[in-house]
């Protein structure tokens, strides 16, 4: 009985209902977009592997470490494998068309990053060709590159013109941690060229990635690596991959906080829209509620009616907003990338639950004031009310 009344009340004014749901949907859409942006930032840290440790120069991520550290890290108990790499700054055609590129030690690369999915033939061809490169499928799609193509690039960190043969196009089993829009070359090849173009930068490494042996406590290894190089001319800062990525995300803390805060404001707006609609409905129906009271309906029945209607509308808004979220997120991702590699912006179950949960809360809060007013109202007041 109550449920039927609730439903009838909800759809009594179809135009207003549509407007309210539309308004709420917009808010949910905006809220969802912000949550997706925040998720995108935090996804890297969440997906990080637990057994990889990153070692960089203690003073700055942009300073280089000597290649000679490799042997010393490898001797530390608990370290299974030591990998190293560098940024390989390049530009294709002009600065606007740049992308992430890295020079990695290929002897350890695939073992360190099992996330990379590349077919065996391409992998062997790449390992054999020191002047070759592999690219993520997103990068390949962006410029229409195929296996066997020669890519002419201009070096920024590694001066000179580079002509690299695409030996393989890879996918990633975990795009949050290993992107699919980057290019990888042999560190040895890049280093060789530096001998003639920038001799003072030869045999230097941007970062070491140490894989810890199973069963070892990574924390002890972290401390052991940094202790090895303490008081040397290039001290190191070692962190677990997860902490390293989280550290970078935290550097944008102020911006993330602003977004977080903004997504809170959105729920405020949603509540306003809903309160407004409910207040109107309740005011119009005050006389009816008076009549219902004379018929024996208790205040709690009336409160249930209002609360139910509020929740129904809020959920309607949430569903409509989530429906719009998918295409909007695609568009947003493309626009933020601005012609560069597009992020994933994947809508997870968590996002959906968060949106639904927020709207249920908003629905309950919005019903509060009208419900309180209704339960305080005497039958006589209700009957006297002139709409």
């Amino acid at each position, binding site marked *: 009985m109550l449920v039927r009344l609730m439903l009838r009340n909800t759809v009594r004014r179809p135009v207003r209902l549509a407007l309210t749901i539309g308004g709420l949907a*917009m808010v949910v859409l905006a809220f969802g977009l*912000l949550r997706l942006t925040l998720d995108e930032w935090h996804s890297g840290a969440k997906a990080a592997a637990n057994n990889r440790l990153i070692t960089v120069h203690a003073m700055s991520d942009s300073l280089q470490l000597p290649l000679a550290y490799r042997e010393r890290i490898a001797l530390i108990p608990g370290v299974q494998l030591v990998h190293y790499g560098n940024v390989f700054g390049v530009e294709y055609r002009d600065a606007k068309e740049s992308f992430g590129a890295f020079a990695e030690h290929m002897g350890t690369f695939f073992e360190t990053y099992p996330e990379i999915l590349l077919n065996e033939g391409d992998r062997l061809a790449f390992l054999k060709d020191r002047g070759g490169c592999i690219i993520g499928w997103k990068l390949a799609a962006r410029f229409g590159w195929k296996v066997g193509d020669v890519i002419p690039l201009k070096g920024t960190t590694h*001066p000179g013109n580079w002509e690299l043969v695409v030996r393989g196009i890879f996918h990633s089993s975990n795009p949050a941690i290993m992107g699919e829009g980057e290019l990888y070359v042999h560190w040895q090849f890049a280093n060789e060229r530096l001998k003639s173009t920038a001799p003072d930068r030869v045999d230097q490494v941007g970062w070491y990635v140490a894989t810890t042996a199973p069963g070892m406590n990574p924390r002890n290894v972290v401390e052991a690596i940094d202790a090895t190089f303490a008081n040397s001319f290039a001290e190191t800062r070692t962190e677990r991959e997860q902490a390293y990525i989280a550290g970078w995300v935290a550097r944008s803390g102020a911006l993330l906080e602003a977004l977080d805060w903004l997504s809170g404001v959105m729920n405020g707006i949603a509540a306003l829209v809903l309160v407004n609609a409910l*207040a109107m409905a309740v005011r119009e129906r005050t006389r009816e509620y008076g009549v219902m009271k004379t018929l024996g309906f208790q205040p709690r029945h009336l409160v249930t009616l209002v609360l139910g209607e509020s929740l129904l509308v809020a959920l309607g808004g949430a569903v409509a907003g989530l429906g719009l979220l998918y295409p*909007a997120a695609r568009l947003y991702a493309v*626009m933020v990338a601005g012609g560069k590699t597009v992020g994933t912006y994947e809508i997870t179950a968590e996002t959906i639950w968060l949106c639904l949960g927020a709207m249920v809360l908003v629905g309950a809060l919005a019903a509060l004031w009208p419900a309180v007013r209704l339960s305080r109202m005497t039958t006589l007041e209700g009957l006297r009310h002139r*709409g």
Partner: protein
Amino acid sequence: MLWSVYSLRNLWARRVTTLLTLSGLGLVVFVFVAILMLAHGLERTMGRTGDPANAILLSKGALSEIESSLSRDQTGVLAAQPDVVTLEDHQVAAVREIALQLTLRKQDRGSLASLSVRGSSPVAFAVRPRVRIVRGRAWQPGTTEVIVGSQVARQFPEARLAETLRFGRREWTVVGIFEAEGSGFDSEVWGDVDQMMTTFHRTAFSSMTLRLADTEVLPAFKARLERDPRFKVSVKREPEYYEGKAEGLARLIRVTGLFLTVVFSVGAILGATMTMSASVAHRTTEIGTLRTLGFTRGHILQAFMLESILLGLAGGLLGVAGAALLNRVTISTVNWDTGAELAFGFHLTPGMVGEGVLFAVFMGLIGGLVPAARAARLDIVQALGERTA
């Protein structure tokens, strides 16, 4: 006049609904203006970094100072070019610098931050006349004294005046705080170039900034130097170089702002429509009475449109007033294009006040259109016959 009083009174008579709608509109305008302010603040900070009469020289191909390296010999020849200003003490207005980023731990929250450090020489103040020391003094050449930008002093407690920074296994005393008119330099630490090169085992400079005779000579100067095969440099106008260094951040702010504004404005228009529809429905009898008294359909339309425009106007003013509270608030975050910490603020301009209010009025106008038209089309007899809708 009469109509505006009527519309105002109507808004007042239904003040709870009016207030809720106003708050909704106000919040939308607040978000809209706040994002405009932030985008403008960032542009202003980057665009003001450096002087339009200055040229910055980087090694060919390098996109940033971090990637660039210029040898001592090279910079000597480059500084001796005509067009470069000679100062009163017969020194050439050319400053050779190295740029570095240092990882520091922010004390308040323990997170890591990268600080831009610039090894420079006193001639930098002649090349960039807008940079002034506001407290303390400049560093003594040949020592490990440093001066810090006003934003650095604010963000990092260990970088206050007379404190000591520790990096490169040496101690650096802060002897002065400088201000650069809210530009990106305010987020940097400056010190002696030779000391820093020794500390960081560098033999080459990162960049050289030259002050040219006037802003017009730069294109010719650039063409001459870039074409000369001896130099292998790229030449950029100083502010243009820095402006390009925050594109990622600027794009995120602008696109997010655009999306939120579009999405929100649709929501707000729906909200305004809802309020105005209810207002019309509520006053059906009243409209009938007015029509009987001789007011035309046009009058009714006008009255309701005016009401919704007033609603928009008030919401707009509310939102702009809220956003104005953010003016001059600065946020400090990492600039992804350089990896270094950058402080920039919300900055309100008179144009934005106008845009915010106009935007709100527009939302009110669109929102009120359908309900007002419906009110105007009501049939007198029907309107009078209806009790409450």
